């Protein structure tokens, strides 16, 4: 396939890339400090874990469901990760392993109960949200864990060489690449999209519902776990309220990236750009010293705007409506 402007224009991510570049240029024109090395560092740090949170939600959106418990899993993993290091003095790798295992178990429970009960994932994950958050508060009694090993703290603060690039962003980038491969180049990813597009057709083709749903939820849980641990590295402590505010941003990026909530259509690159747009604009609001509450309003408005744009594009493409994202 030759790359022409025409084919580029049809991509979900192309328009977003333009928005990223234009907003970057615009903000820099008014406030050159936007491109300062400190600001770029802050921008990359906030992008790093938001990227994983968005992907954790995106994979569930791809199968036509939603996962309200992403933040609760992240919070539970965050306090377990920091808790085992502080209370039981476990080594960092072992603590990471425990954190990931909790993410896998939580995700598995979500997927297993959803598939076996046949109840919508919305209700199941609403229930598990309270269960995971309840365990979190029950263990911590709302007290944070402060004693984080210096290796973890350093990882959260360090920059690569003399550049403003934080170490924190390495893992999210690797995960994004892996997720792109998963969704676009593997059978599992295709099965998820097929399942999200039409459960019945997928089953008639011999795709196992339980396998698809459980796999997607396990991946989502694992990603939420990674995000939770990255936030611990960043904050240098494990507080029980990590994850409380993830719900809105986790949906914002995939929706801005053109994901259809009914399932069957997601785009990893567009979702990543969605994260970047949200991060740039939140950052700009800080630079221009705008009321922090406005960030919230803005995020809501961005989602609505994205919804309207997607609707308009759908209307334009009604005739040649594409099902999968071809890359």
């Amino acid at each position, binding site marked *: 396939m030759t790359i022409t402007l025409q084919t580029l224009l049809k991509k979900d991510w192309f328009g977003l890339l333009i928005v990223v570049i234009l907003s970057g240029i615009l903000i820099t024109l008014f406030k050159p400090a936007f491109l300062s090395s400190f600001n770029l560092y802050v921008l990359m740090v906030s992008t790093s874990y938001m990227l994983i949170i968005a992907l954790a939600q995106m994979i569930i959106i791809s199968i036509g469901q939603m996962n309200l418990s992403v933040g609760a899993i992240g919070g539970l993993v965050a306090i377990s990760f920091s808790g085992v290091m502080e209370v039981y003095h476990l080594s960092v790798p072992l603590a990471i392993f425990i954190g990931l295992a909790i993410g896998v178990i939580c995700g598995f429970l979500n997927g297993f109960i959803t598939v076996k009960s046949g109840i919508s994932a919305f209700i*199941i994950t609403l229930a598990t949200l309270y269960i995971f958050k309840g365990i979190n508060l029950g263990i911590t009694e709302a007290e944070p864990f402060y004693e984080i090993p210096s290796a973890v703290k350093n990882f959260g603060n360090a920059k690569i060489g003399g550049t403003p690039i934080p170490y924190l962003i390495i893992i999210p980038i690797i995960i994004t690449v892996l997720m792109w491969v998963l969704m676009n180049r593997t059978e599992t990813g295709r099965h998820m999209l097929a399942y999200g597009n039409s459960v019945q057709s997928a089953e008639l083709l011999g795709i196992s519902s339980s396998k698809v749903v459980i796999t997607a939820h396990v991946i989502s849980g694992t990603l939420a776990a990674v995000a939770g641990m990255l936030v611990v590295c960043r904050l240098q402590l494990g507080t029980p309220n990590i994850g409380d505010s993830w719900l809105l941003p986790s949906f914002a990026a995939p929706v801005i990236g053109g994901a259809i909530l009914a399932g069957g259509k997601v785009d990893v690159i567009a979702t990543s750009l969605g994260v970047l747009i949200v991060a740039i604009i939140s950052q700009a609001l800080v630079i221009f010293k705008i009321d922090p509450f406005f*960030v*919230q309003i803005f995020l809501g408005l961005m*989602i*609505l705007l994205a*919804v309207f744009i997607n609707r308009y594009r759908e209307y334009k493409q009604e005739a040649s409506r594409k099902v999968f994202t071809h890359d």
Partner: protein
Amino acid sequence: MTKKLPNFMFTNQFGLFCIVIIFVIIFSSITDGFTSRFNIYALSRVVAIDIMIGLAMMVVILTGGLNLALGAIGVCAAMFGGWCMETMGIPVIPSIFLILGMGSFLGYINGVITVKTGVHSFIVTLATMSIYFGLMTMLTEAEAFRRLPASFTDFGSIKLFNKYVSPLLIISVTACLTLFYLFKFTDIGRKLIAAGANPDAAELSGISVNTMFIYCHMLSGFLGAVAAIMLTTRIGAAIPSMAGQLGMDWLLPAFLAPVIGGTLLSGGKLSVFGTMLGAILVTLITNGLYLIDVGEFWIRFFLGIILLIAVILDKTREHFTLKSVIVS
């Protein structure tokens, strides 16, 4: 089966009623003070608001949608009411009408955007939730209204029926009866259900589905505002954090009550009295857990488990219950 059992014994509500009775017996035998006058009065104040929140969510679930912005609408309405009464000095009765109007208006916005974009109301109300809440926080600068007229705040502390029941519960029960009448016996109520059950068929039979969906969202906003007024009279002030961050604290009672009560999440079937019993059950269990002293931090955990058990039981119960009952 030789003898035919009466129909009502196979309804969801009857089963739920039995569960409520069982819990009352358990809690009153193992805890002290569950049946004390103070506790029953406190329960009636809490349950009244939970019923209202449940009903507000129920009318949107009827369309097959959700209203995540319910808590945000409630807080906005309450804060608007506080502003009307405290800052503007508007008398109580006109203020109440203004609050209800505010709730309906915010619901109307949700409805219009949902209908116009054709996007699932989950994402629309997720966005409006943060917009409403953000605007409210900016406009009020997160300051509470604490000097409300005494006639307004005193209402929440009146005690009726030998000091056992709060008048708030009477409002909730009246709302249940009104909604039951609306959905069971009126033309518009039946149209709302038809639109939720099968939008295409409803459209073909001459019902404007879009208008009906907007009505449902408005009704949700209206009931949310009623719940907010009740909560404001109970705490005696309009506080921005009265429903938690972004109003999310309302979500669990909002979904628990209708789902336990047998309202279908896919839309088109609802149970007003089921929602009421669902709210009563949740309040009873929460209260009982406090009295047993499981520790306040574990309450959320148990509520989550209860929601899970309730929906799974509900799924299995489907085989036994009457399918023909659309409104109950």
